[in-house]
């Protein structure tokens, strides 16, 4: 791999093309730092880079090469070109064939890496030093602000989708995958790995999965676990746990991890993950809870006067658009909406 070979093109279009070609071939840290510096030099660089992103996206569509035949092309190329088999899928019988499918070469690399790591551990423990993987590495922290959402690809291939105002600590090592939810809500799409359980910790409560999809949400007084796909167990470490199946939700009132008596609720997986599309789905929910939900996403807060707290609301709204929700309330005619002292909105009965 070329290291920091430098792209010294003055013309932004040419430099952008060079960067695309460089980055898609795998980039070293030096490359990435240099690319970041180039991007931060001029908006013209960004414009050209984005133009090429659109063109390259088109090349991934098979129609871009309609009527162009690879074998025909190769026939007309100079003699030093290796002839191709009849189809792309043809298998090379000799293992020393120079052409490998990407998966095969990748597998070999993974194997080599595993052996290397194993050798390294062996060497370190032989020297009597502390094995580097005996304890958890320092956690990586991911956070979102008000109204922000973030997808995080974890190194094991799992994906964490963070909702607004959330914070997770991620600790991955060879024995476990521990995520601590300290604030907010997250959806996890867990990559299968039977050797390393995937656990989400909320205070003393442990939510454990092998390969599945589930959301975990915590607020001041309780934690809510909803399973979208697969199965998870919920409970205090070392004590009895409850098993949840798709569409099931468990509400944990305290942070002590006790799960013995709470009833299991049934929810629609679609509404449980609607926040990913920034939709809020309310099915006969008290107005106070609905306002609290909007307030998680928006700086402009909605306040509901006490007599209205239990008024029921049903509907689908965009999380970033409290105005549409207020307009919906206005349509009812028996509410008065005014500005509150903190710059938000106050809703009270007429």
């Amino acid at each position, binding site marked *: 791999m070329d290291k920091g070979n430098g792209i010294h093109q003055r013309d932004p*279009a040419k430099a*952008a*093309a*060079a960067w*695309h070609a*460089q*980055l*898609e*071939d*795998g*980039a070293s*840290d030096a490359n*990435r730092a240099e*690319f*970041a510096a180039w*991007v*931060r030099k001029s*908006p013209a660089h*960004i*414009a050209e880079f*984005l*133009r*090429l*992103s659109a*063109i390259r*996206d*088109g*090349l991934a*569509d*098979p*129609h*871009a*090469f*309609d009527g*162009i035949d*690879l074998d025909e*092309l*190769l026939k007309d*190329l100079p003699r*030093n*070109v*290796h002839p*191709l088999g009849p189809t*792309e899928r043809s298998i090379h019988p000799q293992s020393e064939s*120079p*052409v490998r499918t*990407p998966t095969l070469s*990748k597998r070999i690399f993974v194997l080599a890496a595993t052996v290397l790591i194993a050798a390294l551990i062996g060497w370190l423990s032989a020297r009597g030093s502390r094995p580097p993987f005996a304890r958890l590495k320092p956690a990586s922290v991911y956070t979102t602000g008000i109204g922000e*959402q973030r*997808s*995080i*690809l974890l190194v094991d291939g799992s*994906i964490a989708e963070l909702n607004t105002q959330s914070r997770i600590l991620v600790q991955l090592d060879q024995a476990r995958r521990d995520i601590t939810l300290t604030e907010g809500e997250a959806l996890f799409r867990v990559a299968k790995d039977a050797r390393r359980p995937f656990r989400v910790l909320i205070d003393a409560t442990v939510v454990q999965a092998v390969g599945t999809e589930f959301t975990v949400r915590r607020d001041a007084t309780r934690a809510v676990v909803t399973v979208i796909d697969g199965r998870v167990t919920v409970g205090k470490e070392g004590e009895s746990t409850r098993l949840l199946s798709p569409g099931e939700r468990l509400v944990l009132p305290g942070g002590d991890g006790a799960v013995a008596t709470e009833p299991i609720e049934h929810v629609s997986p679609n509404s449980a993950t609607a926040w990913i*599309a*920034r*939709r809020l789905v309310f099915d006969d929910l008290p107005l106070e809870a609905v306002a609290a939900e909007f307030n998680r996403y928006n700086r402009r807060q909605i306040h509901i006067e006490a007599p209205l707290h239990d008024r029921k609301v049903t509907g689908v709204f*965009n999380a970033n*658009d409290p*105005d*549409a929700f207020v307009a919906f309330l206005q349509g009812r005619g028996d509410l008065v909406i005014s500005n509150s002292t903190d710059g938000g909105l106050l809703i009270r009965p007429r």
Partner: protein
Amino acid sequence: MTNPERNVGSEVIGEWFEAHYRALVRFLRRRLHSGHGEIEDLAQETFMRMLRVDRSELIRDPRAYLHQVAANVLLEWRLRARQQRPHSSSAIDDLEAAESIEDRADHEQHGRQLNLAVRELPKMSQAVLILRWQHDLTNEQIALRLGITRRMVKRHLESSYVQLRDRLSRTLRED
């Protein structure tokens, strides 16, 4: 068809990002032809935000980060545009960044123009592009197959990208 970017980089993948990345690509595709206009405005706004972000975060996967920031800017433009119109519940659908019939027609037109532009490239460049984008080979594998050096593979990719960009901006402008 797998996208080589996913194999090569540690691109941040997720439904949310995917949807907005698609919206970004559609936006760009439709405006490729304008010499100076909305793409420049988007780049300007993206640039301002890139200056504000923490460098280390940018360096981890700068290309994905750039795309994400640009997609966010675009999303916010939509939101703002929508807030200036009177509320309607159907407007919520705009946010889904779903592909409309018009988008599909655009997509097909773009595909045809790209196909014509690819045919004008030197044969070796065409072969490199097919192996790269349709067969998902790495530069090294392409080099082995075509009996050229890796450096040449990269050079073919670079010059193809420049030519395709020039050709597409021109044909669209002549329409």
